[in-house]
């Protein structure tokens, strides 16, 4: 399955929120949808779920208009919403039935998931008697009760402790392994990095990057090197190396990050380090973390530059 989001525009009260939002998601891979608060992630997901209609643009599934009735969809909205005063099993069965499961299948599936998430003992309790983390798990169960073909999770990890996050991670991996289409948004880059083959960044309602994560890392790490000088303070080392020509030096907590400019090769740079009698403790190619990419993209000003990256990322 391939879901394509094509040129979606959406305005509220005359305010243009989504600007030609486009990206593509393939089944069997998870897509991490990233952006700062208010960037347009939830609005995009809501238009995808038809919570509201886009002003223009379309959603295609395998090249045809996306008919939500034909697919089993699991959706976890950002605003968690289930009935606080109704028993957990009753409402899970209700949501299962609304997803066109038979009552008995819905009950069976609800019990299976409750068991797996270690919540079976609470099945008759109203939702609001559970802790926040457990309530969050129930919301996730609601999304997967019908074993969906398409799983859309808006900030699924928020509110989960590390143990429960692990349970959710296993669940997402399971869906990826089953060749399902998985989209999830998150602020926690570590989780996205862990599962996602593809990432899409949105900023101020515009997609600024939608590409394969590994390729993006490679592209953004091109001509960049990590270096650490033995027995020298990082600030001092940065000062010394900055004096070299055709390089830009930055640093993180781990090492200095050197970018070779004007076709300068890593070998040439290393030779210069050695010729300056600087003892090398670490020397490697630099691969940015997702967080680095996120921050880098957020820092970039000017939409022209961003658009070119989007095109380079190869959005459909």
């Amino acid at each position, binding site marked *: 399955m391939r879901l394509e989001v094509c040129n979606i525009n959406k305005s509220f009260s005359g305010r243009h929120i989504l600007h030609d939002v486009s990206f593509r998601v393939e089944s069997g891979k998870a897509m991490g949808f990233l952006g700062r608060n208010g960037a347009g992630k939830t609005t995009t997901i809501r238009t995808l779920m038809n919570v509201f209609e886009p002003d223009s643009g379309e959603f295609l599934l395998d090249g045809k208009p996306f008919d939500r009735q034909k697919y089993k969809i699991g959706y976890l909205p950002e605003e968690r919403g289930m009935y606080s005063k*109704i028993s957990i099993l009753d409402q899970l069965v209700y*949501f299962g039935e609304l*997803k066109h499961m038979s009552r008995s299948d819905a009950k069976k599936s609800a019990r299976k998931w409750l068991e797996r998430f270690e919540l079976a003992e609470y099945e008759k309790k109203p939702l609001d008697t559970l802790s926040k983390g457990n309530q969050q798990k129930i919301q996730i169960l609601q999304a997967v009760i019908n074993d969906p073909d398409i799983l859309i999770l808006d900030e699924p990890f928020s509110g989960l402790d590390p143990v429960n996050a692990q349970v959710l991670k296993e669940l997402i991996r399971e869906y990826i392994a089953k060749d399902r289409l998985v989209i999830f948004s998150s602020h926690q880059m570590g989780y996205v990095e862990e599962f996602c083959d593809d990432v899409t960044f949105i900023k101020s309602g515009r997609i600024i990057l939608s590409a394969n994560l590994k390729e993006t890392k490679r592209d953004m790490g091109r001509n960049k090197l990590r270096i650490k000088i033995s027995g020298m303070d990082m600030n001092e080392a940065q000062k010394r190396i900055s004096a070299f020509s055709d390089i830009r030096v930055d640093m993180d907590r781990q090492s200095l990050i050197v970018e070779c400019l004007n076709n300068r090769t890593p070998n040439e740079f290393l030779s210069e380090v050695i010729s300056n009698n600087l003892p090398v403790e670490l020397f490697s190619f630099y691969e940015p973390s997702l967080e680095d990419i996120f921050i880098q993209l957020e820092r970039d000003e000017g939409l022209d530059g961003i658009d070119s990256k989007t095109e380079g990322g190869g959005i459909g």
Partner: protein
Amino acid sequence: MRDLKTVFGFELSNKLKEKTVRLTTIIILVIILIATFIPTLVSMLSGDSSGDSGDMGQNTGGHSYEGVAPLSDEYGYVIENNAISEEALKTLYPFFQSKSYPDEKALRDAIEKEEIKKGILVTSATSFKLIANDLSMYDTSVQSISASLSRFNRDLFLSKEGIDPAKVDQAENVQIQADTEILGKNALTGYAFAYVGMFMIYMLVILYGNSVATSVAREKNDRTMELLITNTSSNNLIWGKVLASMVVSIGQLILMILVAGAGIVLNRDNYPEFMIRMIKEGITIDALVLFIVFSLFGSLMYYFLYASVGALVSKVEEVNSAMTPIQFVFIAAFLLSSMGLNMPDGTLMRVISIVPFTSPMAMFIRYSMTTVPIVDLIGALVLLLVTLYIMAYLATRIYRMGTLNYGNRIGFFKAVGMVFKNVR
């Protein structure tokens, strides 16, 4: 259709599980049962006590006191300045068993010491004063004593004129045989049904309308709406909810009718004849069908209105204030219908029995009490159905629109405007 059934089933089962619904039903049924026992209780109580209501039984002033309840020991009297012959007065109720006192002071002392309850100070053949410690709202002593004195004076006058008062009594008491044949409807017999039915609709709408609005608002408050509308249409969600409330309310209504019926049957021997007649003749099959049709569609229409209001608020706490305008409309409909009870043939009744917001109550009141032209009947029903359709459409659209409108509460009319703007 499958989704509608699912939503309906879920909403119905939750309604039936609600403690407030169960408790309200039990309380209402107990009240109804007690109410049907009132005539029996009254007859039991009145049989046991001599009463002190001032009811003077079969007054007045005749020359025979057979069957008159011995209430006269409640009274004492004083005749001032020999204003009237005590012997003559003794022929009159309530003087015939009352105790005579020498003067006003003695009379007052007796009242204060509670030897007697009321004192009559006769100052002339045509004037008297009643003295009492407490006087109930329904006391008829003054009227009875006035009637007695009036009778006394009449007899005196007739005797002076040489006419036998007994002959005059005979002439005055010729029995008239009166029969009534009603070709249309008897307002009197229809009154009871109309009155009770009006209250039933009032209760249905107020109780369950409130519950529909709160339930929608809770879904919005808990952010459940977003999940729901991504799984099924707002049409199914609103109709399922409203129909579930409808079924519960109708169920409650049927229980109320059954309990009331059982209570009446159990106590029928103690009901006055006119009440039995009212019940038997007032509730006809056609009136009952009309009541069911109008109350059903009318309540549905109001429930949709309540559902719209529930979708416009962001928090459950805001529901009550948001519902106020609907409550005003409905209470106005109730008051107008109550006024119409007293003039079922009037223009006001004709108008309110056709206007959709008042017709659910007013039409069957009018129908129970008077003959309604078929044009009015069909016109009112069509208007009600059209309004019901419009309200259902608006509720569905507002619910859908309200899903994502959080923050400031939107007014109903503004929301309606937004619905039409979106449609265009």
